[in-house]
């Protein structure tokens, strides 16, 4: 037994020396000499030498003039990679996709070909009828109580709105407490479904949304009958009632989140879909012609798209950070036409 113990300890120690000291150390030397920039995460520096990003780690871009990366379940937090881990049948997944699509999706055919669906969603929403019953918002909240709860938790303004409602609706709150005896001190999010049911009755065709009133700088929640909240949250229900509407197809990687939450690439199909928005915005800020700018950016995309292994192993993909830095370089610091 003692011989076994001695052999175990020595072998463990020597393996540490070989496999955990010598092996990574030699690799470190190789990495730092032969593949220096690769071994440190491939950092990108601007002209002043300041690090502006890592080529392989997606950064958040939400502004119109930039290409947007794929959705991230971790808000592009480089220190904590992660995914949604939602199953294919999880309604949270469908809801996230629907919300992204609502404000941007267009008709592919029919009388409104090429127009946004969003205004029609708003018009339909204002009529306040879903599946032959009134109260769209109440139906939404009772069908998806998790979403209603998440809405209250998402923003302090929303929670404040529910608290204000609570004060004027002691009957509803009392009824809720009677139905849920195990929870005598409900938090605002616990009351979400009751809140939306009552809200829907009192504000048909409206949804509480954060707005900034004119002449004020403070955002507050108010019942509204149009806007991006309605376009996004109620796109799915609108779609259920309009299954025959011929809609444009959206590239999958635009709405499905990546595995790492840090996927630096999008497909060329996705980038091409975003091209109109990006070109329009740069044309506006640089006071150029939209078609010219669009052509330029399209060329830029083509030259930035890389097909893996020279096209043998996959579809062309675009590095979002690189293309956005190229756009910034091209349009924000030099006047148009100056090459």
């Amino acid at each position, binding site marked *: 037994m003692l011989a*076994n113990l001695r*052999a175990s300890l*020595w072998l463990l120690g*020597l*393996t*540490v020396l*070989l*496999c*955990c000291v010598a*092996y990574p150390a*030699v*690799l470190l030397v190789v990495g730092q000499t032969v593949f220096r920039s*690769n*071994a*440190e*995460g491939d*950092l990108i520096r601007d002209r002043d030498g300041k690090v*502006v990003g*890592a080529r*392989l*780690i997606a950064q958040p871009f939400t502004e119109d003039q*930039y290409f947007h990366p*794929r959705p991230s379940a*971790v*808000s*592009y*937090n*480089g*220190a904590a990679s*992660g*995914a949604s*881990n939602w*199953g*294919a*049948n*999880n*309604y949270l*997944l*469908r809801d996230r*996709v*629907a919300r992204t699509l609502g404000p941007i999706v267009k008709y592919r055919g029919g009388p409104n070909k090429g127009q946004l669906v969003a205004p029609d969603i708003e018009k339909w929403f204002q009529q306040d009828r879903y599946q032959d019953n009134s109260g769209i918002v109440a139906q939404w909240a009772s069908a998806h109580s998790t979403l209603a709860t998440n809405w209250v938790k998402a923003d302090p303004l929303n929670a404040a709105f529910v608290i204000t409602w609570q004060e004027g609706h002691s009957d509803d709150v009392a009824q809720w407490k009677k139905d849920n005896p195990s929870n005598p001190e409900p938090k605002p999010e616990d009351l979400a479904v009751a809140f939306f049911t009552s809200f829907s009755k009192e504000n048909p065709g409206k949804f509480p949304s954060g707005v900034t009133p004119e002449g004020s700088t403070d955002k507050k929640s108010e019942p509204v009958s149009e806007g991006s909240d309605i376009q996004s949250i109620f796109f799915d229900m609108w*779609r259920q009632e309009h*299954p025959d509407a011929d*809609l444009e*197809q*959206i590239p*999958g990687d635009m*709405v*499905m989140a*990546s*595995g790492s939450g840090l996927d630096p690439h999008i497909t060329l*199909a*996705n980038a091409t879909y975003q091209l109109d928005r990006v070109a329009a915005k740069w044309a506006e800020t640089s006071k150029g012609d939209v078609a010219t700018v669009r052509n330029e950016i399209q060329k830029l995309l083509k030259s930035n798209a890389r097909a*893996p292994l020279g*096209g*043998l*192993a*996959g*579809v062309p*993909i675009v590095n979002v950070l690189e293309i956005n830095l190229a756009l910034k370089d091209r349009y924000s610091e030099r006047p148009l036409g100056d090459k």
Partner: protein
Amino acid sequence: MNIYAAIEIAVFFVILLALVKPLGLYMARVYRGTPCGLNQVLLPVERLIYRLSGVRPDSEMTWQRYAVAMLLFNLIGLLAVYGIQRAQGWLPLNPQHLGPVSPDLALNTAVSFASNTNWQAYSGESTLSYLSQMLGLTVQNFLSAATGMAVLVAFIRGLTRQKVAEIGNFWVDVTRSTLYILLPLSFVLAIALVSQGVVQSFGPAVDITTVTASTDAEGKPVQTQQIPQGPAASQIAIKQLGTNGGGFFGVNSAHPLENPTPLSNFLQVLAILLIPAALCYTFGDLVGDTRQGWTLLASMLLVFVPLLALGLWAESVGNPQLADLGVDANASLQQSGGNLEGKEVRFGVGASVLWSAATTAASNGSVNAMHDSFTPLGGLVPMLLMQLGEVIFGGVGSGLYGLLIFAIVAVFIAGLMVGRTPEYLGKKIEAFEMKMAALVILIPPTIVLAGTAFAVSFDAGRAAVTNPGPHGFSQILYALSSAGNNNGSAFAGLGVNNVFYNSLLAIAMFGSRFWLIIPVLAIAGSLARKKQVPISAGTLPTHTPLFVVLLAGIVVLVGALTFVPALALGPIAEHLQLLSDSAP
């Protein structure tokens, strides 16, 4: 899936099969102790290791002594990993100043790495210091893999030797596996990975200012981002080759710094199956009939390829729930199409599904896409591949000794049909071998099913679920299937970093590793004592297509009989629900 993915998968199989013979032959030479090419450099190192450790390489062990040495060695390794994690706050190479790991998590991680499972309840970049990753985890990546290979070689000796009690020297087998096979292969792979952009540094994470401002998960404005660093490449190479699977970063090989390009992905997925496939040839060479090895490999492929095809189909069709909304799932030359939730676009559906099947067929458990977000049938494939007992490729060494146990059962069943005493490679299979084989085959499913039943019976077990309906049950079943077969992959949404799951899964991982090795060694010891019987007219040849089908059939039959009821409650129910929910 498009034509690119089909080409890539075809190339994958061609290269894998082309490497089986050269690597298999090389490993056979290593275990025979004959010159293999690297011994001119490494023989002095090997001798030095024996001298310092007090090992006499020519002194052989009975199966009992072999088992004691193996258990003691793994126990000490396990305790060392536990100790390093608990003490990492006071130890060097901790630039992020991470504190000690909690006791239950440290125990889970220690068992996980010592048992070649590499289940990760922690997230690498936010929990473990570089020292813990290197000294604690990397060393077990090598030694747990080497242990599996050593046990396989001991088992093969049991088949080939006659009328002796000894089955080899554990220390020699572990040392040779590490020094001649795992270390050189890792080195070559790691250099290739660094060239592709996998990080290999010792500096702290780099803070950068992003191009535009945005909001973080809590809705607060941010304009900074942390770029993680660390000695990743060296660990990733061995985690792929040694069927370990424990990633450097939380999302494993989906992380762009762990697996940056399609080429790095191809090399990593090839590395998963490389040694398990080549060991089939090593086996054939060591028993003196390479047809026996090719037969085993053919059985593995016979199960693997159809399941891979099912997975590819399911993921390429995509998610009908999202197609309703206008999401384009069609593959074209512009996009890989299919279900991309939890997948990286640089891999697409084809390379992601290939990986998911390879990593669960072998007991690797690394991932390059999130299995939790696969379609129900796409997720059934990896789950079933684990539940088949990790014998379709399986862990390095452990997969093949597992399949050899199934081969013993196969000749036994064939023997029952014709009424003759079964024999395998000239060794009579008798009551003792069959009892031990039954243990090896029954222990993992028992752990998986009893563990799942236990977990769903308690609030603490159910509270960890993060998906509604049958998928929630699938999450638990997947976790136990993974731990109970030493795989290590996960339906990662399940909240497993708590005392309940850390303890339950630690027990499952420990049991399914070491409770199997002991009966396997017992069979080896028993077979070594027997004399070889000559081949007669009544001997079932074990190198024929008939035997390929028989062996694969028995593996599938045992797995299916055991797990179909559980699968019906999970992925199959989920699939039917998905179809009915999205029907017009």
